[in-house]
Structure formats: C-alpha cells, structure tokens
C-alpha cells in the first residue's frame, strides 16, 4: 500500500490521474483479488504473531489435537479465538470507521488533509469521555459523552472558523490543529484531576493507555463494545454510501454542487455530523487513533480513482487492513510490552501528512 501512495507523477508527465490507470472494470477484479490476498496475509500475521514471535505452528498443533495434553490444546484454541481473533476484528472495525470518517471530512471540506484527528474532533470526543467519570465503568456508556464531545468539537471548529473568517480549507486545518492543542491541554488537566489522592492509580493508567489509542483486551473485552461498533460502522457506511454522489459533487465546491442539483449546506452538515459521530464512537471504544483517515483514503484514491462509490467501500476495507497490520506491529515490536496502536499510526501518519503537504505545494495531491 505504501509504495503506491509514494509513487510520483512526473510534473508534466503522463497525464493519467493518480488512479487514472484504474480503468473501471479492468482493475476491479485485480484489486479485489489483491485485496483478498493482502487481507489473508495480514489476518494470518495478526493471528499468529505474539510478542514478535511466530506462533502459527502451535495453533496448528492444537488443532490437530495437541501434543498430548487436550486441555492445553483447548486452551490454546480458546486463546486464539477469544483474544486474537476478537482483537483483530476490533482493529478492523475501528480502522474501517476511522478511514470512512476521513473520506467524509476530506470530500466535504475539500481538502485531502482533512481528518477528524487532525481537525480536533477526536480530541473533543476524548475530552468528552474523560470528563464523564463513569466512562470506564459502563463501557458502551462512554459513547454518549464521546458523541457529545465530538459534536461539540465539530461545532467549535466550524464556529471558530466562521468567527475568524477562515475561507480556505488550509486555514481550517490550522484552526483544527489549534483546537486539537487546546483539547490536549484539557486532557492533561483531566488526568491531573483524576490522579488526585482519592483516585486509584490504575484508573489513570487505564485512561492513559486509552488516550494513546489502544486496541488491547481491556478495551474490547471489558467494555464489550464490539456489537455496537459493527452497528455504527454499518449505519455510517450505508449512510455515506447513499451519499456517495453528493460527496462527489461537494468535492467540486459548493456552487458547482448546487448547480448539479444538491442542497450543499444541508448535505455538508449531514455528512460532517455522520463523520463526527462515527469518529466519536471509535474514540469511545479505542481512544483517539490518528492518521488512519488520512493515509488510507489517500492510498485508495490513487488505486481506484476519486469516485466515492468506489472510494468508500475500499477505504473501509483498507482502513481495516491498515489498523490490523498496525496493531499487530504495535504489539510485536517490543516483546512483552505491547505499544498503543495510536503511537504507531501517529509515527507513520505525521511524516505522511508532511509529505502530502509538500505534494500539494507542488500541485499534485
């Protein structure tokens, strides 16, 4: 995936657009086949790598009936399905949601750099979650304050942009970055309050792990958010797929969208709200994981073109793959010390953002 995103078009060179070689119909079967192959490899990696160690052999052995002790074989299989598979599915759902949200924001704000994490929507949802003291007790209940925080952040972003008379989308990104910094300060403040004498240290630890973006078992098992997540991903994906053409039109600009028959404002709001809601749910479940919605949609557009009918399903799929891989990497890098996946995506995504910025400057992004 990475290689394709980095391939350069010569400035005046072959005028095929990024993804222009993706002739409709011609690339689709190839892409599907390739996608399935990549999914298989990543799933295999995710299921079999533990702490940097390749453990597929042990599972195979367990499947065959194990080396003598049937109880241990059963335990191995249980461990795999209960832990590894669930975690993988969790990563896939979160990755799909985040990537989808990126697609929505980029089309509506007409900037390939727009992403809920960069714009502060994830930060707002985090503040919402941490402000609600019941957040880890109820699990899925954390979604309510997250939704409130995410929507408030969207309102603040657009309100601040309007008040400051921000007209171009680059300045909007900047506004979002500043908002993000404010939310980061709030998060630190809330931690300081949480770590007071009456609060248990473990809460802070759990909170801290969450705030770095985490797919660890304490998230998907304890909170039991998996069904809700699939529901949200499903509803969000269907809504945005139904709005694929308005997304295409809004990417042309408000006036052109209106001239081609949609009400730009109401569609814009609807899409931004749906994008913020699905982001907030992902944040409630796994903490703020950044840059998935930046990297994946960009790569997808290069591969399948810019029509949202293709970009949306491929981005969900690509986001799922990306986060599954990133999480496998995160928990294998340091044996015995799984890293929060948000650390990995940010380390990859930050430089990627700068790269996209440079290419925009060259008129190619």
């Amino acid at each position, binding site marked *: 995936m990475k290689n394709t995103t980095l391939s350069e078009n010569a400035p005046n060179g072959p005028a095929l*657009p990024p993804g222009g070689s993706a002739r409709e119909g011609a690339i689709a079967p190839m892409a599907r086949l390739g996608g399935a192959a990549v999914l298989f490899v990543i799933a295999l990696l995710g299921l079999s790598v533990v702490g940097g160690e390749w453990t597929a052999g042990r599972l195979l052995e367990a499947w065959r009936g194990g080396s003598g002790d049937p109880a241990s074989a059963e335990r191995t299989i249980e461990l795999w399905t209960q832990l590894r598979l669930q975690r993988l599915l969790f990563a896939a759902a979160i990755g799909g949601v985040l990537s989808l949200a990126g697609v929505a924001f980029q089309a509506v704000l007409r900037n390939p750099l727009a992403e809920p994490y960069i714009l502060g929507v994830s930060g707002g949802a985090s503040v919402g979650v941490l402000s609600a003291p019941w957040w880890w007790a109820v699990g899925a209940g954390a979604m309510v304050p997250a939704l409130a925080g995410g929507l408030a952040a969207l309102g603040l972003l657009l309100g601040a942009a309007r008040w400051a008379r921000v007209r171009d989308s680059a300045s909007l990104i900047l506004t979002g970055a500043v908002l993000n910094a404010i939310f980061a300060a709030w998060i630190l403040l809330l931690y300081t309050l949480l770590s007071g004498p009456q609060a248990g240290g473990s809460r802070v630890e759990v909170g801290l792990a969450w705030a770095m973006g985490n797919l660890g078992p304490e998230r998907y098992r304890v909170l039991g958010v998996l069904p809700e997540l699939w529901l949200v991903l499903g509803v969000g994906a269907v809504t945005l797929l139904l709005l694929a053409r*308005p997304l295409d039109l809004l990417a042309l600009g408000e006036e052109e969208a209106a001239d081609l028959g949609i009400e730009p404002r109401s569609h814009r709001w609807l899409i931004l709200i749906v994008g913020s809601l699905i982001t907030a749910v992902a944040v409630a479940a796994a903490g703020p994981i950044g840059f998935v919605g930046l990297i994946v949609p960009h790569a997808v557009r290069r591969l399948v073109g810019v029509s949202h*009918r293709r970009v949306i399903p491929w981005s969900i799929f690509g986001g799922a793959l990306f986060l599954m891989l990133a999480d496998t990497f995160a928990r294998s890098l340091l044996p015995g010390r799984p890293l929060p996946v948000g650390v990995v995506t940010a380390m990859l995504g930050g430089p990627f953002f700068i790269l996209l910025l440079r290419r925009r400057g060259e008129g190619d992004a």
Partner: protein
Amino acid sequence: MSAILRADGLHVRRGEHTMARGVSFDLPAGDALAVIGPNGSGKSSLLLGLRGLLPSTGGLHLDGVDPREVARAEVARHVAVVPQRNESAFPMRVEEMVRLGRAPHRRPWQGWSRADRELTRHWLDRLGLDPLRTRAVDSLSGGERRRVFIARALVQETPVLFLDEPFAGLDPAARGEILACLHDLRADGSRTLVLVLHDLLPVEELCTRVVGLRRGEVRIAGACGEVLDPAALEDLYGNPWEELVRPGEGVEEERRVLLPARRDGRR
C-alpha cells in the same frame, strides 16, 4: 412570444450589498444573451441570482419555474452552468466529470444508467474530448478544460445554459476552440444561452441580446444591433469607443466592429 428566461425588476443581493438593481429582460427560447460590463459591475452576481443562488426580489421565471422556490435538483434540470474555474478537491477524470452532469436526473443513491453513459460518450465525442476521457481534468489545457465543463453542461440536458466568462484566461487558440464550440451550439438552436462576457468581440458574433451592467445598474438592454453603439459603451465602461466598419469582400457581408478609442482619436 414566450420567454424562456424572464427577469422583472430583479434585485440581487449578496449579504447587505445590492449587486444588481432592477434588471428586466425577456429572452426567447433559442436566443443568446450577453451580460457585459466593467469588473465588479455585478455580472456574475446577476448570473447567480438568475439561478437562485443569491437572494433576490422581483419577478424571475426560468423555463416555467422560479428557481428560488424549487429544489436545487429541479433547477438543475432547467439550467446548466459552465463555471469560470473549477477547483475540484481531487483529480477527477474527464469522463467522470462530464457524467456528473447526469446527477440532477438521478436520485443521489442511484447508479448511472446505460443512457447516462451513452449520453456522456455522445457529448465527449462531439466536443472532441473522446481521446482525453481517461485524463485528469486538472492535467488538461485551459481550452480543453473549458470544453469538459461545456460537455458536462450539455450532458445535463437543460434548455438553458449559463456560461460565466467562457473565454477568461484562454490563449487565442483556445479562444478559437471555444468560440467554434459555442457557434455550433448556436447553430444547433436547441439551447438558450446566457453568457457573461468580459470583452465585446464575441458579443455580436454570438449573441442576439445584451444586458450591460455598471455598478449593478442596467445601462444597456435590448437587441445587440440596436443598442450597442459607441455612446452606450462609453456610458457603460467609462472610456471612449469608436465604430469601425470592415468592408465585406466577395460573399462576406460588411461588418461593424466596436473598439475602445485612443484618447488622441487616432488609430
């Protein structure tokens, strides 16, 4: 006579400013109207007002509907717009861009029909864009790009076409390209055109009627041959104009040309 586009004392506002004041005209179907005037005179705002994208008061009638009172999709089935520039956020291919002209005829969630694809191919072919159809729109030359948006407007199959400065920013070759394209459209006669034009050369060639705005006020309105003369243009643009007559040769008719005059009166 039934006018396909009629404005009756139309005031167009942008925020607190009135951009066009008391504009009235009747445009019969198949005609072409030029909207002219100096920079900032409200030409483009008038075009926005005429399709209901800026608030306005006064009578407005576009192919049987008032664009201020119906949904955008309905308006987009009556009038198509060729924008002055396009700043698409993502590099879209020519064919995809042109096909978007079918959007007002489909529900947002519906796919393109075979008829949509065929119509797109038809206009790509007629405007000579077929070899470019898989190219990115932003990789094209100015004239090619303008043709893409003309094709998109034609694919939209509306009786009325608005063109906002179709010659702006084009070199002479591209101007010729677009002029030929618009001549074809005029000859075809099935569409009514409204063109915002920055200079006068194409006005008399392409248009039957003209509206001249200066600071939102109508200074010129009527049939081109009747109302365009040096005095009217001086009133509109504020500089002296003169009329030259080019003698006809052979079968060519005599042509008159209006040009800005030099201050010393010589050419």
